[in-house]
């Protein structure tokens, strides 16, 4: 029995010494802050920051090659925590979420053709410009939903919809959309214009029942041009998200019915 214990202890001792030596002479020293930063990042590995996963971003942050606050998923709290580890000041960031600026469902927006091919917006758009009459509208083939790391986007009735509660604002969908109609907007904003067509009223009307015609009704009702709640691009109203409107009454008055007041972006009428 004693021999056994001595034996095992001896083996253990030899191994321990060997390992200790190895650790001393062969070890690779890494900046310990990398691990600490990785720990405070959300760990979703969404790639929204532009780096290969959270670990890649942590390395870049420590190396000083990436700006702090690029992690949209972690938001402000995460940036603050990173700043604390790195010993720098963090600029306050506001949580932003994706908004699909189209509400032309199958029953509202005209389809000019019968698309037959891969279910992906980019290829559908490259096939005769897509089957939707409106050249600016959501095709509904789910390119954004496919890239969403949080499955926050779903397709209903030929239209992509973002669930605000799940969205982490990584912005991948913004890049994926061939029609460039997804925008990151402040999560606190509740009133939105769901249209992306800057054409004149009559040509919008020809292709969609709920397209913005640029009538300026929303602007007038929210205090006029001076109030600055809306901006106009051609004949398209856009919410000025640095000064968003607050009176929800204007939504119901929109003659084109392309405005919503909805905390979860569950649009549709």
């Amino acid at each position, binding site marked *: 029995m004693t021999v056994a214990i001595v034996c095992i202890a001896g083996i253990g001792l030899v191994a321990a010494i060997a390992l200790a030596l190895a650790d001393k002479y062969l070890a690779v020293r890494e900046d310990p802050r990398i691990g600490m930063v990785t720990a405070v990042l959300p760990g979703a590995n969404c790639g929204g920051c532009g780096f290969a996963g959270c670990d890649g971003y942590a390395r870049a942050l420590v190396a000083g090659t990436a700006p702090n606050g690029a992690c949209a998923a972690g938001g402000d709290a995460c940036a603050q925590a990173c700043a604390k580890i790195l010993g720098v000041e963090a600029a306050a960031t506001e949580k932003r979420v994706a908004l699909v600026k189209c509400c032309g469902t*199958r*029953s*509202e*927006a*005209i*389809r*000019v*053709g*019968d*698309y*037959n*091919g*891969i279910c992906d917006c980019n*290829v559908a758009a*490259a*096939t*005769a410009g*897509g*089957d939707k*009459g409106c050249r600016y509208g959501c095709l509904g083939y789910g390119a954004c939903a496919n890239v969403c790391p949080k499955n926050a986007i779903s397709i209903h009735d*030929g239209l992509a919809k973002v669930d605000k509660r799940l969205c982490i604002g990584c912005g991948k969908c913004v890049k994926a959309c061939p029609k460039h109609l997804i925008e990151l907007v402040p999560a606190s904003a509740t009133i939105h214009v769901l249209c992306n067509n800057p054409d004149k009223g009559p040509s919008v009307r020809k292709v969609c*029942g709920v397209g913005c015609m640029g009538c300026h009704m929303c602007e007038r009702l929210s205090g006029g041009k001076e109030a600055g709640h809306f901006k106009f691009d051609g004949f398209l109203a856009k919410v000025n998200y640095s000064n968003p409107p607050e009176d929800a009454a204007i939504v119901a008055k929109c003659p084109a019915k392309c405005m919503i007041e909805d905390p979860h972006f569950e649009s549709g009428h």
Partner: protein
Amino acid sequence: MKPKTTESHLVLSSSPHTHAKSSVSRIMLDVIIALLPTTAMGIWFFGMSAVWTIAVCVSTCIVTEALCRMAMKRESTIGDLSAVLTGLLLALNLPAGLPLWMAVAGSVFAIAIAKQVFGGLGMNPFNPALAARAFMLISFTGPMTTWLKPICRCKCDAAPDVLTMATPLATMKRLFGHDATASATPHFQQAIDSLPSTWDMLVGNMPGCIGEVSAIALAIGAAYLLWRKVITWHIPVSFIATVYVYSLIAGGAPAYMQVLTGGVMIGACFMATDYVTSPITAKGKLIFGFGCGLLCMLIRQFGGYPEGCSFAILIMNAICPLINRWTQPKPFGAK
């Protein structure tokens, strides 16, 4: 509510806007047609028990496929005839007279485990019929190696009351195997005589699986597939050539016997050529056929089973992704 559309509703699709008249179901139908001669020969030699086995396998496969697709909530794929083909191939690889419940179990295994688990046709890494056969061979070793004698047509019929007998392969293994001591016994000559004649081997008048016995019928089927351009020559030729050359070099039983008996013919022409589980390039196909032939003969010569064809193909199925990886075609103009 009906979607709004314009009056001139045109089809929008990516080029090309025309298509050759080929379809998966047509390919499967061609293989089934090519299997008809050997099926007929199997029924001719093994009688009603063969008919029952075939009927049970095919119908079980179809039902299992339908049920699996329903359970997965996906569209039915009965129409592509692949389930029918799997059932037929499985049946042709079973001995006649096998208890039918075993055939049912095998068919369910083939479709449910070996195919639909992976998502159905095109996704399975192993040939479903062969996987099922291997499963049955291991689970029901006894019944799976009990061979019905071709009914009333066996010339070498020494004892008419015996309904089962060893396959020529097993006899050959006993006679010519590497640890054979039979040559010293007085039964040697008798055993040699019990081997079927070359003609019997060609037409299929010997014990074996329902569909593997008739080399001529299989050759006709293979010729049909080649003519219809369903298969290419690479796998059958390299498979059979490897078996032939190997047995020439290794000695033992005559090389032509090694080719004509057992599952080499059906394996080389119908099982190894299965699209999904064989390499896609010509070079890969040659390697694949060579590997099948080599493994088949290794198992025949040294292994515990008298027949190694299905195992050889299964193992090569497993290597197939790696072969595909190594034999990527070189693009026109690439360095």
